[in-house]
């Protein structure tokens, strides 16, 4: 498999609206990279340009350093799994998988060997003579995966491949995909709008917003160090404290409305401070980054409780695992630990 380099990609369908702007990223050989973002942000467009199904307005795509921007789709040798699976309805499972090999003019014997091999790997051997309409969603998904892999493509492109499966199967399939990817050392670009799914299987995550890259990093880095407020919101940082230059005392201290807050990260250029709901402690035995507030809303989440707490710095969302629920109107002390309080510059 190969490495992929996308350089300054831009796309406009109608010549006016910019659907993609300045998209640049690299996928190393054998990496699984996810594009994560809300519906309509340009994920599918990015994937389809890389596949060669639509034309970019500007930019370059390189595979192993070779510019393939002008190569037509059928000469790119990529594998692709569509959201709707897009199996050929008039061909059996075997012939669906064999289709690409026939296009590459392999001998009958080679085709038989390769198809049988990949069907075995994906657990489809017994279904070889079935037709797509006779298969369940999960089986169709597997066929579509087998069809994409059998030609030994430069890389695999997947557009929300799990979104049509039920929750349980989704979990199982994503594990299978990850396992297969690691065994075969595949380079994969995986599109999803499901944050959990994406963080679970990816080496790197590319978070997209309105046609631009917000952040491109390892999942744990994004989780602990979101670069922008948009990313933070997207991955569940529910609390935002707006700050400005006047609030800064030094690189690690900020005073907002009389409350002095310490951060572990340098707060230079900080426009907002953010913290996850489960990282705020209630009535902790500490004076670090502490303020008081009143509980104004409560919600039962099963494992924990979620409170809305009104304070001088605005409303906070706090998640607390505890035996007993606190009451509305209770006055509580909030502790925003310095290591969990992230300054964001955008």
């Amino acid at each position: 498999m190969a490495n992929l380099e996308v350089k300054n990609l831009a796309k406009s369908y109608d010549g006016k609206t910019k659907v993609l702007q300045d998209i640049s990223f690299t996928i190393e050989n054998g990496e699984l990279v996810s594009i994560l973002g809300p519906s309509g942000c340009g994920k599918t467009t990015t994937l389809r340009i890389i596949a060669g199904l639509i034309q970019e307005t500007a930019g370059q795509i390189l595979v192993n350093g070779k510019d393939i921007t002008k190569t037509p789709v059928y000469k790119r040798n990529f594998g692709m799994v569509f959201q709707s699976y897009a199996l050929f309805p008039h061909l059996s499972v075997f012939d669906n998988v064999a289709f690409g090999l026939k296009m590459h003019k392999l001998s009958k014997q080679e085709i038989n060997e390769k198809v049988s091999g990949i069907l075995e790997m994906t657990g489809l051997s017994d279904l070889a003579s079935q037709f797509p309409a006779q298969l369940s969603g999960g089986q169709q998904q597997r066929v579509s995966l087998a069809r994409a892999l059998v030609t030994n493509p430069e890389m695999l492109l997947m557009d929300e491949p799990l979104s049509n499966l039920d929750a349980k199967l989704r979990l199982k399939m994503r594990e299978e995909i990850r396992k297969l990817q690691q065994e075969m050392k595949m380079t994969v670009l995986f599109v999803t709008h499901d944050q959990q799914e994406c963080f679970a299987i990816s080496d790197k995550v590319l978070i997209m917003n309105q046609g631009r890259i917000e952040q491109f990093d390892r999942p744990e880095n994004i989780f602990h160090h979101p670069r922008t407020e948009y990313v933070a919101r997207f991955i569940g940082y529910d609390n935002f404290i707006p700050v400005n230059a006047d609030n800064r005392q030094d690189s690690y201290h900020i005073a907002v409305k009389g409350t002095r807050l310490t951060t572990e990260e340098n707060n230079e250029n900080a426009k907002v401070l953010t913290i996850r709901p489960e990282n705020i402690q209630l009535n902790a035995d500490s004076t670090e980054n502490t303020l008081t507030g009143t509980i104004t809303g409560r919600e039962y989440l099963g494992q924990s409780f979620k409170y809305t707490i009104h304070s001088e710095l605005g409303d906070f969302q706090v998640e607390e695992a505890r035996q007993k629920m606190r009451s509305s109107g209770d006055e509580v002390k909030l502790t925003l630990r310095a290591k969990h309080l992230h300054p964001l510059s955008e």
Partner: protein
Amino acid sequence: MLNRKNKTLTIISLIILALIMLPLVLVVITSFNNQSSISLPITGFTLSWYSNIFQQPDFITGFESSLLVALIASFLALIIGIPAVYALTRYNLQHAAWFQSFFLSSTLIPEIVIGFALYQTAVITFKMPVFISLIIGHFLLCLPYVIRLITASMLMMDSHIEEASWVCGCSPKKAFFLIVLPNIKSSIIAAFMMCFINSFNNIPISLFMNGPSLTMLPPAILNYLQNNYDPTVSAISVVLMVFTALMMFLVEKVIGISNITK
């Protein structure tokens, strides 16, 4: 409740079926009558009207030319109609809706007008052979069936399967034959049948081009009926019904009628 509804529906369907079938049954019965005019009740049994069909040279040559024209016109309509529909549904053509209406426009013009117009321009003004003019007329008759039926199934087909084949290494040209055509196969056959039957049975267009040089079957029957009101007409009607039914049966054998109506 559901059962009673079903029963009512079945009865209504049977009544309608009977209304459609009754005249046909009468035609079949009269074709065996030994009276020399088309009449009921029948007074005796004979096959002589059937043998009389073959005594009429107009019927024989009419059948041959009607068959030939219907086949050629249907094939032409498919060969031109399918790529046109493909372009209209797949590419974001400008004025696609305009083209669509244009292709269907011949349904808006009375067939007798098409026939007359063709006769005037093609045969009289441009001195084109009658046969060619007939083919053009029947082609115009057939094209809307192809456009309608193929458009419907093209729109129903998931366009991603074509893209999937391209990604698999198949060029778009090849994919048209390997992926698109097989998946609209049943509507192609359905369109062909509609074209063929409508062309084969057409009177208004054929009437104008009918003459000593070329005889089409329906005008020949009409002509015969004007001169002799005998059961030969019933007999040939029965033969045509059997011929059409046989065609349906063959198609059913090959792909299944349920596939067509899908």
